[in-house]
């Protein structure tokens, strides 16, 4: 069994307290994770500037090159992780075993994280809108218009309270490293694997170890990171997002409520977009914030729902090692039973129909975990409660709604794919403050363009544009 120790600015800490990570299906322990208390975090954070200072010893260009090396190590190498050497296969087995994600999805998330690191130079160029990174490094510089520009760093380190079961979101904190910002991470209790392996790859690639802290622990550890770090990100529920709304120190990532909106000019041709809709709902077992949870159209909605149900309704549980496995387990079975109960409540409302009813039982309970099989529901109006729901399994509501009301009713939407050639609708969607990422045309909601910011631009979060004047004297 692998033992993972906390890292305090790169140095492993021999914890006296351990938590076990168990296999989702058998309950067998697969890792022992040493934990820390909030006091250690608070104490270490006094040294946070040293993490940035260590990264400032290298130029952004050097760091980008080392990130690219780290990407290859992460995706292909044998790496020292905890007290063991971890191969790629070990990583995939371990991550699948603790998160319930099928192994091929773990590989795909691994590739996603690696891709971001490999292309970090392009991504930063895009996020900074082409700014010379030495300006961020130095704090000021000449942009080429004869004007001094300055960006003031807001924190020496980025804190992150990482999720339990969504390995793909680690892409969000990776760019901090070439931006010369240290990392203070609280790994998710069931998914310590990606942060541990990634930090190991960074260090192996020659990035200073003292730039990284990893603090497994209880909730108080997350609280300490957020209290002591001037900039941190957290992943959680809608409640978590609400709790941190308006706090400039915190970037909260919650449910996406991502949607596909079909304009009246395209809806008669909906069948040509069925694959795109299915992918948006089903990919990564519907777990991501970028999975589609609502499809909105003014007509043909029952037919659309029926067609998606025919495609995803029959999907059943398969072993995690099966390359055809489409469903991830709920490693905490109560989350599945609770979700099932909530869905039943949604279905009790008039005007809401379960289009997947004929495909059998949805809740599959096992000894240590549970699964929810895909569901498609039809709602005859955006007034139905289910129109605003998102669940952590392949679940989509197809909502009948006049086009004229659509943008006013959709609510918060992380990714909105608009299927329309209607210029006025495209313009209105572009102006909607409810939609974060707008895809115009048949782009599945789960397909990210890494050269675009995701849920807020990290540069804006970590740096502040400011005045900087220099006079000779």
């Amino acid at each position, binding site marked *: 069994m692998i033992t993972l120790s906390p890292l305090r600015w790169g140095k492993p800490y021999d*914890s006296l307290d351990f938590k076990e990570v168990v296999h989702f299906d058998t309950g067998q322990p697969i890792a022992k994770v040493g934990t*820390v208390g909030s*006091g*250690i975090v608070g*104490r270490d954070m006094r040294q946070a500037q040293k993490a940035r200072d260590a990264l400032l010893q290298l130029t952004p260009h050097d760091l980008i090159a080392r990130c690219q090396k780290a990407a290859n190590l992460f995706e292909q190498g044998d790496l020292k992780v905890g007290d063991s050497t971890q191969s790629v296969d070990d990583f995939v087995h371990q991550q699948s075993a603790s998160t319930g994600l099928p192994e091929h999805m773990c590989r795909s998330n691994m590739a996603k994280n690696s891709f971001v690191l490999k292309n970090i130079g392009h991504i930063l160029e895009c996020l900074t809108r082409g700014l010379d990174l030495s300006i961020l490094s130095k704090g000021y510089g000449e942009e080429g218009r004869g004007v001094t520009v300055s960006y003031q760093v807001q924190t020496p380190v980025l804190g992150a309270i990482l999720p339990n079961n969504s390995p793909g979101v680690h892409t969000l904190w990776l760019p901090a490293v070439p931006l010369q910002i240290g990392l203070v991470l609280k790994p998710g209790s069931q998914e310590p694997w990606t942060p541990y392996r990634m930090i190991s790859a960074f260090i192996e690639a020659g990035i200073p170890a003292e730039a990284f802290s990893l603090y497994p622990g209880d909730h*108080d550890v997350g609280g300490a990171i957020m209290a002591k770090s001037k900039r941190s990100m957290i992943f959680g529920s809608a409640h978590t997002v609400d709790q941190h709304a308006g706090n400039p120190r915190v970037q909260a990532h919650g449910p996406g409520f991502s949607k596909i909106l079909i304009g009246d000019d395209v809806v008669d041709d909906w069948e040509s977009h069925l694959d795109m809709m299915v992918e948006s709902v089903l990919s990564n077992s519907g777990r991501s914030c970028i999975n589609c949870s609502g499809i909105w159209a003014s007509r043909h909605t029952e037919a659309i729902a029926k067609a998606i149900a025919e495609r995803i309704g029959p999907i059943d549980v398969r072993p995690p090692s099966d390359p055809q496995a489409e469903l991830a387990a709920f490693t905490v079975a109560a989350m599945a039973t609770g979700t099932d109960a909530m869905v039943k409540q949604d279905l009790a409302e008039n005007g809401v129909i379960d289009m997947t009813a004929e495909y059998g039982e949805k809740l599959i309970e096992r000894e240590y975990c549970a699964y929810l099989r895909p569901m498609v529901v039809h709602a005859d109006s955006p007034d139905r409660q289910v129109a605003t729901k998102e669940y952590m399994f392949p679940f989509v509501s197809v909502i009948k709604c006049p086009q004229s009301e659509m943008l006013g009713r959709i609510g918060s939407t992380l990714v909105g794919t608009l299927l329309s050639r209607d210029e006025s609708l495209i313009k209105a969607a572009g102006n909607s403050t409810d939609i974060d990422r707008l895809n115009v045309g048949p782009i599945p909601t789960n397909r990210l363009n890494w050269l675009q910011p995701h849920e807020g631009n990290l540069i804006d979060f970590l740096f502040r544009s400011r005045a900087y004047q220099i006079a000779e004297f």
Partner: protein
Amino acid sequence: MPEADQKVNSDMIPQVDAARDALNEHTLRTVHWHFHDDTGSPFWLEKKRELNFDPLTDIKSFDDLKKFPLFEDEWLRGGPIQRWVPQGHAGKPVYVFETGGTTGVPKSRMVIEDHWKDYELFSSTLPETYFPTGSNWLMLGPSGPRRLRLAVEHLAQHRGGICFCIDLDPRWVVKLIKKGWMEHLEEYKKHCIDQAVTILTAGHDVKCMFATPKLLEALCEALEEKGTSISEVGITGIFSGGTEFTPQWTRFCVEELFGGAPQESGIYMTPTYGNTLMGLACSKPIRAEDGYKISYYAPQPRAATEVVQFDDYDQVVGYGETGRVKLYTLTDEFFVPGFMERDEGEREAPFDLYPWDGVSGVRPFHQLASATTVGVY
């Protein structure tokens, strides 16, 4: 020899037997007090009628206490509180101390002098070098309806000192946590710590203190931010307590906040484990060589703890084995013949200082843990 006794050092057996005899004798005396018509409390005299045995004749030893049904904490919720006052103490001034109370009716326990006696006994376990008699104290923790403030204040006075007190309301803290008002929580903590720093830097010659683990940590941090330290402000002896007092936390505190073991840093810290029902269990001295293991020993014979099987609360587990903590209170003020604590831990063997069973690794009982908000102090 029963398996459970196999780890008791043979040299210890006479002391263990003597302690057991004392416990048996004390049990007999306590039961007679609480169930005699002239001295017993209305609660126990009424409860006696429901029992299928006569406590006055059928309880002959500590083990016989298992004849009683488990003590239910629900009995402590709601009044009248007078039903707990033994007739033998009628007319004396009575305190009421509460536990819980974040939601619903809190549990109340009447006390006359038990809190003083508990802390006087505890006082005798404090090393003079680090807890010098005559020195002043700081009490940084909950007061309100809890007994802690009065008890620590009495401890200070008993040792010839004066106690300064900073209050923290754990019920408000629990509400802040449940509401997710973490900024308010931080501010409230800061508010408490600011007051403590003010007292410690105001020339009152405070050398000893009680603090909850969280507050002690925050205090050390605040002092360091001001360019000083807990040692520099003159603190030499600290006692603290609760299930948050883990070996890892102790190690962090000793090594990183204090700057080393007592002989290096000049600061001695001892944990305690207790509650309004039982009184104060003392700790076996903690050492880095033992991995900062924390073992608690109840103040026998006034109180006793057992570590019992999860599926049979009448059976103690073997030494080193894990079970739920069961406690007994055997004072002339209050009688608890077996109360299942909300904690679990490992059974520890007697040693020379405390020749009776102890408990280590105390943590929230795993079947209740998810429903408990821990770390509120």
